[in-house]
């Protein structure tokens, strides 16, 4: 690799900081960084972030998750756990209570749903959740993002690879 593009360098800076770049490439990258002020500036930031390290994981979280997963695997029949898990407030509802509540909801909601549905099936929240959980529908949690400074994610997503490449070049990366 005689000529190294800045884009290639900056993409690999996190790996360089993590010591995951092969020795021969390390030399080439170091050489480029010594000659390119823009890449060097970026390297400074990446190196500092690596030095600071990621946010520490709270002590006890792993054990709490083990307990939660055990809870899922061994949920008891006869009572339902709603919105809860180990370490958090739970509401235990007896089976007859759920049945009664379901009856009330059906009685109230069915006429309204039938009126609104017509012939088309109306997806319920559960349907959506199941699709997300199964990977059939990746969540799009960013649709209401009001602070995307990059002139709107939708604009970026609509650009071709070539256009994105040009944008990066113009950014000096």
């Amino acid at each position, binding site marked *: 690799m005689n000529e190294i593009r800045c884009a290639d360098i900056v993409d690999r800076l996190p790996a360089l900081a993590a010591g995951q770049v092969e020795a021969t490439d390390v030399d080439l990258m170091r050489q480029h960084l010594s000659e390119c002020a823009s890449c060097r500036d970026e390297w400074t930031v990446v190196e500092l*972030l690596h030095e600071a390290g990621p946010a520490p994981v*709270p002590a006890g979280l*792993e054990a*709490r998750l083990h307990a939660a997963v055990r809870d899922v*695997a061994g949920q008891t029949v006869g009572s339902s756990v709603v919105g809860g898990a180990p370490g*958090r407030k739970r509401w235990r509802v007896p089976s007859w209570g759920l049945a009664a509540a379901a009856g009330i909801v059906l009685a109230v909601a069915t006429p309204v749903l039938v009126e609104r549905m017509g012939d088309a099936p109306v997806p319920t929240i559960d349907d959506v959740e199941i699709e997300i959980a199964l*990977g059939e529908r990746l969540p799009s949690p960013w649709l209401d993002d009001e602070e*995307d400074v*990059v002139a709107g994610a939708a604009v970026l997503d609509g650009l071709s690879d070539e256009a994105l490449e040009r944008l990066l070049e113009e950014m000096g990366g």
Partner: protein
Amino acid sequence: MDSDATLVDEARRGDPAAQNRLVSLHHEIAFRVARGIVQDDDLAADAVQDAFMKAFRALDRFRGDARFRTWLLSIVVNEARGTLRSRKRRRESDLDAVGPVVDPARPIDDGVVVRAEARRARALVDDLPEKQRMAVTLRIDEGLSFREIGALIGSSEGAARVNYHHGIRRLREKMSE
């Protein structure tokens, strides 16, 4: 078959050791992804717990088209965003808490300066817009590919790369102020 796929198969069959192993392998990145969104340790931990429970409830029906990690993290992202929406809460960045970069009265020590600058850089990450914040932390802390980052933040691979570079550039500007 990678180790995750093997563990998922064993976990589906009810093997508690495999379930625990999956938790142990992925809880740290799950927490950091959630924290990157809600910016609060407690809320992030709650979101991660809900996400793991939802994932394990649906494990029987996980088709394996995507990597388990990507699938799990997409649920984490969703849970964290839901937590954020429901709490209507956003932490104000408090860079004052980080303190001055260098105490002028103190003799200069390169190690102290670097550590203080590193803490400041990390604090500034919290001020980035979500997509940039996620792209920067997932790339630097977790070494994720831009493709996987894009899948998690709802962007293309190219847009994830641009968000990452925008974030780094903005940090560079803030650091020089």
